[in-house]
């Protein structure tokens, strides 16, 4: 079953909406990233269920994660602590929420789990085998971050 959505565009619009509304930041134009390696020190993942199975992840290098957290909280953030894990998790939650609305518009109802965040210097995250993968890169002053969607439509 094909998804009748331009998911790159939906992820782009949904992410830009979160940043402009909650962080007062207009994100730079996005591009679809073909590379398989993502530079991340903080990754927040949110499981998707219902009409599809999958996971939406936000991958951020340290400087970007600190910049996003600082903008959300309105303060300087000096390290990768609980505030950063929580803030990037909430970012994943809101982006996934916007995506949920997009899917609902084409008749696919999805359910969101509670975000989980990982902090580290070198880690690998394995998703669903056979899943469709979409990776979108966004630019901020501190660098790039990525939104990754892995999904399988339930038939």
């Amino acid at each position, binding site marked *: 079953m094909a998804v009748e959505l331009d998911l790159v565009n939906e992820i782009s619009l949904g992410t830009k909406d979160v940043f402009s*509304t909650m962080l007062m930041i207009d994100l730079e134009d996005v591009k679809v990233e073909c590379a398989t390696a993502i530079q991340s020190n903080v990754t927040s993942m949110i499981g998707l269920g219902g009409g599809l199975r999958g996971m939406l992840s936000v991958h951020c290098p340290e400087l970007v994660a600190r910049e996003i*957290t600082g903008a*959300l*909280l309105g303060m300087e953030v000096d390290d990768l602590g*609980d*505030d950063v894990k929580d803030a990037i998790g909430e970012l994943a*939650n*809101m982006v996934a*929420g916007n995506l949920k609305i997009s899917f609902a518009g084409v008749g696919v109802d999805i359910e969101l789990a*509670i975000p989980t965040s990982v902090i580290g210097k070198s880690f690998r995250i394995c998703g669903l085998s056979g899943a469709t993968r979409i990776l979108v890169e966004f630019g901020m002053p501190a660098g790039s971050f990525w939104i990754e969607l892995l999904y399988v439509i339930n038939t």
Partner: protein
Amino acid sequence: MGKNVLLIDDSSTMRKIVGRSLRQAGIEFDNIFEAGDGLEALALLEKEHVDIILSDINMPNMDGIAFLREKANRPAIKDIPVLMISTETGEDIIGEAKSLGALGAIKKPFTPDKVNEILGPLL
């Protein structure tokens, strides 16, 4: 007795953002209480006077819907107004929240103006 609000969200970041949005919207409370889930909220409501509750839906331990259901069974707190603040905007879940007493919902992401527009008339 001053006005008190209770923010229920498993994200401490979101609780801070909501608190800041209230101030930016010009909505002043004497006390802003916080709880990380429905269970924490019920415990807090046994001790503190709260005038209005802003609650997330998706939370561990006790989610926003279960919290509303439990609150409705407690005479001492059942009449405290609740507004949901959530990424959940589906008619089913918001309808269920309203059937359990929620007055409405604010969708995440939100602006202070949106908070004021929806919360202001309830105060």
